[in-house]
């Protein structure tokens, strides 16, 4: 039956049926607008208490053809409430560029907020794929994942790095991550230690308000965070040992975890995706 359907149904119908199969577990909304000119950016976290933040950005155009191509790396920042703050641009032709980001707020009030990364260039991915004869490679677009390097103190060489994790936001702010009808519970496989302090930072890449319930699995405590679209909220955790779960309408809900967050001069800082 499955083979018969695959044989006689149009490709788009097969894709839609496949999407419906596990619709309550889908991370992204159904879309047919993926092409070389669109992009998916992860939703990265800015920490205002760090002395410096760098971003490792990739030049996909150069990497594909194996030659340096001038590109502009764009960063767009949103405040805690999800409103646009500012943007920054950096031109380079390197395959990878470690970019020192400027602090987006002169008088920072928020401890954490979020940003996206995307690439502009006179040389489009469409042209590149055309030139190398791969214009039939469809249903694919650029994904801007990147790595953020956080410097928690004054030492210029003391930092921790984390890769991009989740986002699906395009350069024109199209938000593809969807909320589901049924809730999921995500549990990082991590043992929180009572002697350490943690900031659990969540941002909301969806189009709607997002409620996240933080569940202490080894006590009865529950914390609720309400995050506007493109906004960022955090919860400070201390004096607790054990595991933590996150309940939300996202198919997968991961926090960025700062262990002994900045400012930290003791070398005990860490950052990782849960």
């Amino acid at each position, binding site marked *: 039956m499955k083979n018969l359907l695959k044989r006689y149904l149009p490709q788009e119908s097969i894709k839609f049926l496949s999407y419906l199969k596990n619709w309550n*577990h889908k991370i992204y909304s159904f879309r047919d607008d*993926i092409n070389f000119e669109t992009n*998916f950016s992860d939703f990265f976290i800015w920490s205002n208490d760090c002395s410096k933040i760098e971003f*490792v950005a*990739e030049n*996909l155009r150069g*990497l*594909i*053809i*194996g030659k340096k191509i001038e590109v502009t790396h764009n960063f767009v920042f949103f405040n805690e409430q999800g409103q646009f703050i500012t943007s920054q641009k950096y031109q380079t032709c*390197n*395959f*990878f560029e*470690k970019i020192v980001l400027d602090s987006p707020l002169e008088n920072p009030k928020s401890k954490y907020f979020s940003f996206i990364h995307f690439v502009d260039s006179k040389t489009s991915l469409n042209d590149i794929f055309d030139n190398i004869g*791969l214009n039939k*490679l*469809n*249903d*694919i*677009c*650029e*994904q801007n*994942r990147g*790595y953020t*390097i956080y410097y*928690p*103190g004054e*030492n*210029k*060489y*003391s*930092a*921790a*790095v*984390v*890769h991009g994790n989740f986002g*699906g936001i395009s350069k024109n702010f199209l938000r593809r991550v969807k909320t589901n009808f049924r*809730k*999921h*519970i995500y*549990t*990082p*496989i*991590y*043992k929180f230690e009572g002697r350490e302090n943690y900031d659990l930072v969540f941002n909301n890449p969806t189009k709607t308000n997002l409620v996240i319930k933080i569940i202490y*699995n*080894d006590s009865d405590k529950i914390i609720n965070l309400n995050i506007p679209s493109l906004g960022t909220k955090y919860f400070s955790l201390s004096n607790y040992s054990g*595991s933590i779960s996150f*309940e939300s309408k996202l*198919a*997968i809900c991961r926090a960025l975890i700062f*262990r002994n967050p900045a400012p930290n*001069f*003791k*070398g005990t*800082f*860490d950052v*990782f*995706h*849960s």
Partner: protein
Amino acid sequence: MSSYFPIPPTINLEELSLKIAGSTTFLNIPNNRLKNRIFSKGYNQVIYLGLYSLEKYNWSLIKVFKTSPYEFAQVERKDFECESNQMLVLVPQKTNNFPKSPKKLPKPDSLRIDKSPVAERCSLNFSFKNSVTSYQGEYPFEMALLKNSSFFSFDALKQSSFKDEVLNFVIYMNININSDVRDEANINVFNPSDIFLKRKFVAKRNSFTIHRIQEENNGSQINSVYFYTSEDCSFIPITLTLNLKTNQLSAEHTHPPSEFFYGLNKIDGGRLLKKTWL
């Protein structure tokens, strides 16, 4: 997709007579699941972890950990007699029925209880003095079956070093279920602006290969990003940095090349990058 949970290596800092220690933390809970419907049963699965080491002719079961729901198991390499880079791996299963000396690693059971998107993971930890760095990692079962594979990565996560204040390492992790697979594979290192000046070093299959970044990191090229490729074997590369002044540690893996793309055909995108650089 089920996964193996490796125990990270010990990194000997010979000039300092100190070590960076590796450990793995497991928690018995599916890391993503649908919220229970009313009246549905809670999670009550006991999980056994078989700890295997790669010995001369076979895998050897050295300990079994039993974990109840929501219970942690912490496995530290220093608690076992083994080489610093010898492959130690946890195999999760729902029954305590581990073979003692198999030629092939048993298949790990999946912890999934529904169709929620998940990568089955544990915490891979490195510690030095009072500092600990962790990341959520795993070694996918399908990857441990590969016979012919290739590799493309880069060292852009290394940190600038100043008067040897920072040590940078890339740890190349490879697991194959077959204990006979332990031959060497060449890894090419080159500056992508000068691809004809390639150096090679040797990495081992079914092992951790610890590469200290220093020779690439001198003179005017201090911040150049180097590429690492192999035509013979795939690895999970972990960049580990240590600041000797603050003791700050950092560990993170780089994304595989297919992650530069999104869409049904993202694997083709990854192949395209490998074709350019391999």
